[in-house]
């Protein structure tokens, strides 16, 4: 059918442009990490693994990476219950002052990160908690929380009030209705949201910068700081290792639960 062909052409045109935009820098950085030269170039000047050798030696990078994983885990573990409950509350119930509450819950996005960073540095400093990892986990959770809430509310359109009513009519008590009907309906949103939260926390540098010290520095902060002096190919190599780790994690996830769960319409 011509109609569906023109539709495909239009959609694919946009998608391919988007794919180029998303992937071009990744490809360049990937290639540049194998350079034998001393500056990031593409195509690389000769091939070598020397920059991978350089980062393999650096134990501080490994430790920083482990810290980042801990921070991202804390962030996600907090975000899942908090964001899910808030998302369901906003989408399922008629809440008074919903708009005001929403504007309030969007504060993490309307406050510039530097402001959030300074503010939380003062708050956690007052509590004497700086230098530990949990404040960084909480902070990365707070500044990205709207993603979690919105991912849940967005998939809450799956939620059919009729279905719940039907369940109630069949005598299902509230908690069961919540666990067996509401929760599964918003599950795609929860999974998308928590993956996003994890990745964003894993890569956050601006707010973390103000909350860590030299003994608790996370990987993105360390990279950010190194870049401030000069960009050398070892940073490209770190990025590639990072991507490889992500690749393994995604493949694992795919094997265990199946990636389709993110988006499959029922």
């Amino acid at each position, binding site marked *: 059918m011509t109609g569906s062909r023109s539709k495909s052409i239009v959609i694919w045109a946009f998608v391919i442009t988007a794919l180029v935009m*998303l992937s071009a820098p990744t490809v360049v950085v990937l290639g540049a990490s194998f350079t034998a030269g001393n500056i990031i170039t593409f195509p690389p000047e000769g091939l070598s693994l020397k920059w991978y050798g350089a980062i393999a030696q650096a134990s501080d990078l490994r430790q920083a990476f482990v810290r980042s994983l801990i921070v991202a885990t804390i962030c996600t573990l907090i975000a899942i219950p908090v964001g899910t409950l808030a998302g*369901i509350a906003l989408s399922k119930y008629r809440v008074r002052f919903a708009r005001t509450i929403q504007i309030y819950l969007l504060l993490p996005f309307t406050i510039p990160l530097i402001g959030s960073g300074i*503010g939380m540095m*003062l*708050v956690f400093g007052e509590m004497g908690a700086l230098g530990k990892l949990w404040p960084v986990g909480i902070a990365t959770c707070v500044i990205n929380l709207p993603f979690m809430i919105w991912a849940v509310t967005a998939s809450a*359109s799956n939620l059919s009030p009729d279905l719940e009513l039907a369940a109630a009519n069949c005598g299902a008590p509230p908690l069961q209705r919540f666990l067996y009907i509401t929760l599964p309906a918003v599950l795609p949103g929860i999974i998308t949201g928590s993956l996003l939260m994890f990745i964003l926390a894993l890569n956050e540098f601006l707010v973390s910068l103000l909350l860590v010290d030299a003994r608790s520095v996370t990987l993105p902060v360390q990279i950010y700081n190194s870049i401030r002096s000069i*960009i050398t190919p070892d940073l490209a190599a770190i990025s590639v290792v990072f991507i490889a780790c992500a690749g393994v994690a995604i493949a694992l996830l795919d094997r265990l639960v199946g990636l389709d769960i993110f988006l499959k319409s029922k």
Partner: protein
Amino acid sequence: MRHSRAAYPLTWRVMDVLERLAAAVWPSSFQRGLPYLMLLPAVVLVGLLVLGLIQIGDSSLRTLDTSTFMMSENYTLANYQRALSEKFFATVAGRSLVGAVIVTVVTLIFAFPYAYLMVRTPSSALRKFLLVALFLPFFIGQVVRAYGWLIILGNQGMVNEALGLVGVPPMRLLYNYPAVLFGLVQYMLPFAVLMLAPALTAIPAELESAASSLGAGWVRTFRHVVLPLARPGLVGAGLVVVTLSLTDFAIPAILGGGSQDFIANAIYDQFFRTSDQGLGATLSLLLVAVGSILVGVVFMLFGAGTLAMGDERK
């Protein structure tokens, strides 16, 4: 095997206990308070930021004494006066606002087909590929990614070299306003797609086939069926993009070549370069106000997005 003997499985018993517990803690007469209780943890968590904002609000009312580098003891509105009267801040604010709106529109135009294809494609391999392509850029820090663009778009970059082959002299593609907007679009694209996808997932594919079987072309189906149903997602994604690009710091700093500052860059300069916490705090608060008003306006114009679906969806 053994379990089948029990007419009433263990999980049910557990559920019963939990159910009774829940009823005891939260009798059904409190039902109306339930959504507020569910919102409470999020409100408390964001409250951390509010505590920070209070501190920031306090410093915004003090001026910097450059002979001691302390903030003044007494309160004054001098910082607000400066922020609102100096032309420089107006220029920067205008640039950020216009930029955020353009970026939002362009990002949504690209994100929508991407999310649509990702959700609707029958091929699970394609779906996975599109999903992975979205997530991978996150793992290369923003700064390294911007460096990648320098290699691609720089004066001696790949694009200019390619143009050179056909006789076009090198041109400056970076370090201007369009470069910053481009950088923001490619940075925001994954966020927008991920916000849109669940909303599109929720639109039954049957609705579209029904529309087309009734003779509607795909453009009409799109306009009258898909877009309206996707509105909550569009509003949500739009809000995410507009607020994040309005407050972004890294992209204008790296791709702007230093002359395309957004408000966040001006705030950074006050906090970190001139050590004027008062003025930095003032600018932060004004930015929060502008951002929140913008969000409020979007709510009034388009409805409260995803959360209003209960009332507003037809």
